[in-house]
């Protein structure tokens, strides 16, 4: 087993991504659920898909921690900015 | 010519000038400490032939001390400032009995809308005057700011009040004048080539004078 799984099964991840995309479409247009819940689920699915691409296609899962940090540094900054900008409208 | 903040003419001057003075004292101490220290070192430790400098890489205790003192001072300053900030600009800072005046800014003039006899904005007896802000003394004034075009800024130095006027936003500011007299309202945000002349007169009047003026001005406006 150790040598057989040297690299992730890319085709499997491709199927995974395709299924998630289909799920997103179904969620967005077919499921009659409250709008806010729908929004949350869609964002969750998008992040999930993005994480799959980052972890397996861009090999972040197999990189050292310091390269992972480099890749993740901008994300909190972006989140801070968006939250501050949104807070303008809820006070 | 004066060398200090402008004369005091609103209730904000107390806390703001006090805070200014407090910061001036704190920073003054730091300033003297550093500059005198620098000059002293420059004189005392200037190079002399045959001498070698003291070989050290630092001193942890000294560093902890001069990290802690500014940290504590700054946090304290932040808490005190925030106390006043909440009173001046906080979400619930506007006194409920404040007298409303509408100020509409456009390139390059201030259009001041007065509530008329009923004391409410948005009613039929409102009237608008260009570049003249009359306010009764000793009464909280609610200024409802709006802009026609670009960002302007409502600034009366003697009141220590400043608020940007942003198009697309309804911004409220308040102040309470304490000294009757004539002041100037200026635009302090670059708003185009006429920015420098976008000014209005501010008249702080006793309630009787204000009422008399308003009666007359309302009449003039309706003609």
């Amino acid at each position, binding site marked *: 087993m150790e040598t057989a799984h040297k690299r992730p099964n890319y085709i499997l991840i491709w199927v995974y991504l395709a299924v998630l995309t289909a799920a997103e479409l179904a969620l967005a247009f077919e499921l009659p659920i409250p709008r806010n819940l729908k929004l949350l689920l869609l964002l969750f699915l998008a992040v999930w898909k993005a994480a799959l691409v980052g972890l397996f296609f861009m090999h972040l899962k197999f990189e050292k921690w310091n390269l992972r940090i480099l890749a993740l540094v901008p994300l909190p900054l972006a989140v801070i900015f968006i939250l501050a900008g949104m*807070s303008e409208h809820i006070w | 010519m004066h060398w200090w903040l402008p004369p005091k003419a609103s209730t904000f001057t107390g806390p703001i000038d006090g805070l200014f003075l407090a910061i001036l004292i704190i920073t003054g101490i730091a300033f003297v400490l550093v500059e005198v220290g620098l000059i002293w070192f420059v004189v005392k430790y200037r190079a002399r032939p045959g001498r070698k400098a003291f070989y050290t890489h630092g001193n942890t205790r000294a560093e902890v001390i001069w990290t802690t003192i500014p940290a504590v001072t700054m946090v304290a300053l932040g808490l005190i400032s925030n106390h006043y900030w909440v009173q001046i600009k906080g979400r619930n800072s506007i006194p409920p009995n404040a007298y409303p005046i509408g100020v509409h800014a456009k390139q390059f003039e201030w259009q001041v809308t007065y509530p008329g006899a009923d004391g409410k904005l948005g009613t039929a007896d409102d009237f608008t005057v260009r570049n003249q802000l009359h306010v009764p003394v000793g009464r909280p004034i609610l200024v409802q700011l709006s802009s026609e075009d670009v960002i302007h800024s409502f600034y009366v130095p003697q009141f220590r009040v400043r608020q940007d006027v942003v198009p697309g936003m309804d911004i409220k500011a308040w102040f309470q004048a304490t000294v009757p007299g004539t002041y100037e309202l200026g635009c302090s945000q670059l708003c185009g080539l006429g920015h420098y002349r976008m000014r209005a007169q501010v008249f702080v009047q006793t309630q009787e004078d204000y009422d008399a003026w308003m009666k007359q001005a309302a009449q003039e406006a309706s003609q």
Partner: protein
Amino acid sequence: MTSVAATAHGAHAHHDDRSFVRKYIFSTDHKIIGIQFLFVSLFFLLVGGLLAMQMRWQLGFPGKPMPGGGILPETMAPGGVILPEYYIQLVTMHGTFMIFFAIMPLLVGVFANFLIPLKIGTHDMAFPRINMWSFWTFFIGGLVMLSSLFVPDGAARAGWTMYAPLSARHDYSGASIGQELWSVSIIFVGLSSILGSLNYITTIINNRAPGMTWFRMPLSVWSLFITAILGLLALPVLSGAVIMLLFDQIIGTHFFDPGAGGQALLWQHLFWFFGHPEVYILILPAMGMVSDIISNGSRKPIFGYHSMVFAIVAIAFLGWIVWGHHMFVSGMNPTLGSSFMVSTLVIAVPSAVKTFNWMGTMWRGNLRFHVPMLHAVAFVAMFVIGGLSGIFMAATPVDMQIHDTYFIVAHLHYVLFGGSLFALFGAITYWYPKMFGRLMNEGWGKVHFWLTFIFYNCVFFPMHITGMAGEMRRLYDPNQYTFLQPLQPIRVFISISAFLLFATQLIFFVNFWWSLWKGKKAPQNPWEDNGLEWSLPSPAPHGNWERVPNVYRGPYEFSSPQVAEDYLPQYKKLPTDREPAAASAATH
């Protein structure tokens, strides 16, 4: 894959057979690129200064014809009398040139390029060709910005901060092509900075000499590294924002147009989200180079090296969460204002740590007052004033009074001129011999320093006073306001001092050019410093070292008891030193 290092190794051999164009114009040598940045940005510094002089003329002598102003066209200054619309162009372009085309490229473009490979011990940048593009995109951006001064309806005129919607709509500002050229130019500058930062970060992470561990790097390299990270992450935000502004200007989008649901405050959030890290881009490299120079001038190790490094990192991190302090009175959510105030005040702590550490370095030293050292000490003295005056603005209630007045003008010039520019004069003098092989004239350097120091304080200190009195920024004629009329004598005093300050800078420029050809030939290590760059001949050759030196110790071993002389270079092997582990030891 051939590594860059290996190529440089082979290529530089003994004589340099590159053509003139490859050597000096489309050069990929980090030192030449640094020098290209130096010449171009010194030129823009002069342009920015000239614009400032015109503003000072108008403020000191409003309505009087400016000497030599007759050459300006009717649309700017008919008969030499400056028009209001030209005045706000001056304000805008002075800020833009000084920040984007003078201070930032002088600190980062010049010194990151020149110093990083020399100080960490490598042959060149990781990506020399990208480095060349970084210069040329900057140059194109500069040309575009310069050309905008000459278009028919004039240059951009919404302040260097370009607050929308004034900047977004031509009918508000009165300029169309000028505003658009500004946006285009800034996009180029952003691209240039991103390409540069990418290079600096990769080079510092990957290409250090054997033995050059993270905590043996000079503080100048540390600060340039952190600055590069700030630039890498901040400039794309500016580029994005300016692209949207440009779209608002030319294809009618509505990002910042409140009439169609856009948000004017959004521009300010975007701009200052970039702009505050930018402020630290403009001061951190200066702090780093000053640390190097002060340690050298004091002949003492830097006091608290590690806390200096952590202070740089802390400032950079905090720099991302304080941008709202530019917007306290902008109508921003006041609760957000409270949190921005606290984070802003906290920044005072690492700044104080750095100041005290510089003083600690001078304490019990053996101070040599060469020209760079004079500038470095002046940097500390002036940076303190600029830093302390920042506390006034950080306290939100006080900011109500002094926001957008001359107090802030004084503050930012104390940091940018008293801080960055003094450090730059020092740094240029300090590394001039390694760039050109000659020393700048010491006597004229001292004259320039003292006159600058005096006139500079005469110009900017009184601005605190007029600012406290309520004099707003960017006023074409403050005498419009009766309460500002009594301040006219101060304005005249500032203006005259400013003219003298500008004249004094000509001493520097003349000294710079004169020394290029006539300066004293520089020895290899004129300042008796420890850095790796001083192991090279002056000027440093193409490709730097035949073989990169090994590093045995930290960069500030002055007055070490181990040796007789009062400095101990990083590359000097003492009998007690062990060889650093080979090549990729750093991570294993």
